[in-house]
């Protein structure tokens, strides 16, 4: 082993060059792990207003990120972050999180609202929010077990035109009362 100072510097210099030259481009795992500081390890969120990405559909993540990137979907921080990724990188992250198990949350929820939501979801939401909200048709997001405060913030953004509802959703949501909608959110938060 080279022990002189000059030797160390030389060895370190070669090392720096070689690792940089050999390094593979960021993998799906490398890209996605960086998100976990806010969205939880493997995308399982412990923060009540931050969505879990674990088990979310790839299409829903890609759709959300592309809309954040273009500014079509309003955000606080996500738009600024989404602009840092190529479309291919966004797809890679979507794939990574979609392969993780849904993050089951334990929330204190009003059982009356949960029951009411359960009776409403079948007729109103289940064509797109499949499997009791565990999956989604096309780019429809999965909602099962998301934190209630997160779901409430999103619904409020829909109702105040800060987030654009897909047409099919708007048709279903319009006739429902705020109490109905709140019950639905309680229901989806309760699904494990």
């Amino acid at each position, binding site marked *: 082993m080279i022990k002189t100072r000059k030797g*160390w510097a030389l060895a370190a210099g070669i090392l720096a060059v070689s690792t940089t030259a050999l390094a593979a481009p960021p993998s799906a795992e490398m890209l996605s792990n960086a998100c976990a500081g806010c969205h*939880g390890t493997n995308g399982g*969120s412990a923060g009540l207003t931050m969505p879990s990405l674990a088990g979310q559909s790839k299409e829903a993540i890609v759709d959300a990120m592309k809309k954040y990137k273009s500014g079509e979907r309003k955000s606080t921080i996500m738009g600024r972050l989404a602009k840092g990724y190529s479309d291919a990188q966004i797809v890679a992250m979507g794939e990574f999180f979609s392969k993780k198990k849904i993050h089951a949350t334990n929330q204190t929820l009003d059982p009356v609202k949960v029951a009411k939501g359960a009776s409403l979801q079948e007729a109103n939401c289940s064509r797109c929010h499949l499997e009791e909200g565990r999956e989604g048709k096309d780019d429809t997001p999965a909602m099962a077990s998301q934190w209630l405060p997160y779901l409430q913030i999103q619904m409020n953004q829909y109702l105040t035109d800060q987030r654009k509802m897909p047409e099919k959703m708007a048709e279903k949501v319009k006739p429902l009362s705020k109490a109905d909608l709140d019950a639905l959110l309680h229901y989806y938060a309760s699904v494990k």
Partner: protein
Amino acid sequence: MTLDRRDFLKLMGAGAGVSLAGCATQQTAAVGEAMSKSGGRRVVVVGGGYGGTVAAKYIRMLDSSIEVVLIEPNKQFVSCPFSNLYIGGLLKDLSSLTIGYDKLAANHGIKMVHDTVTAVDPVKKTVTVSTGTIDYDRLVVSPGVDFRAEELEGYNLATTPEIMPHAWKAGPQTLLLRKQLEAMPNGGTVVLTVPVSPFRCPPGPYERTSMIAMYLKEHKPKSKIVVLDANPDIASKPGLFRKGWAKHYASIIDYRKAQKVTAVNEKNRSVFVEGIEEIKGDVVNVIPPQRAGKIAQVAGLIGPDKAWCPVDATTFESKLHKNIHVIGDACIAGAMPKSGYSANSEAKVCATNVVAMMNGKETTELSGINTCFSYISAKEAISVAGVYTVKGGAIIAVPNSGGVSPDLSELEAIYAESWLKNILTEMST
């Protein structure tokens, strides 16, 4: 130092005697066990903060055949992020900022050693603690910051912080600064000094200014806070801080740029700008200039700037010693700021490449994130966010991405709470 810790443990509701005794027993057992296990591959991680916990966890997640020993003197970690909210009175205590290591260690099979590293031998690849020596194949150090006290005439590392707290390492110092503010008379002056960049948490001094001003406005409205900033301007989110201060605290905050404090006087509770102008305060929060934490000095990892540790941008391996990686505030990470989230992100990049190198596999280029919230008032926060990549061997921000909030935001204050919850959960489970 010992007294601080005892006081602190008392305040945290733990019996000091019991805790310290329990600590000593566990240290001996842990080192004995760690040392006796030979033949396998081992990574030693030094420092159980935002960087070290996450590096230890992800190395185990990525390759459970690698033994990981995490060395950290304290049994609990108190987060610097959000500690300004306690100082301002938005948090009743530090419990929501405090995490332990038990769950992390149990969930991932990490061996905890509660001890202080006294020496590192990069040739023999050993780390020395008070109870013995631990071999490593690779060493990850995440030591945070230390103070360049020698640049402040009259500053004594042992006594000055007790009179003029820095509160730049969360815990007893945070409690002390709050206590001093509570004891200050209405009409008193708070002096806050900002060191020259780079330092831990670039927006931190300005968030603290906001939180102290908020407290004064509500409880001591005749009081003022004088900010003496060694930098040519507010070092982070300047437009947003100015806007927030103008909106809420115009008559309370007296911000003075390019005012470098070079000396302090404990007896007068005063600081000297460029050694000449003496400014006294009833509460004086001196944030000293900083360098990489002590273990980085001990291990000879600090570069020619005599402050920070140069590292490879892909692996975070030290440019001075092979097989030693430096992450977090202590390292020079190009465009990535010295923040908790950066340390979290760097830890994962480092863990990925430590595991790759130990398995003779190709390394992976960095993709990093920083997100950092600052509270302006009880209900409004601002943020800065960035995505990072490597170009020509240096960490750069991805062009046309990241940046600061357009305005003060109530939603960002709500999201910031979840930021804290998630990042501390990542570190502790």
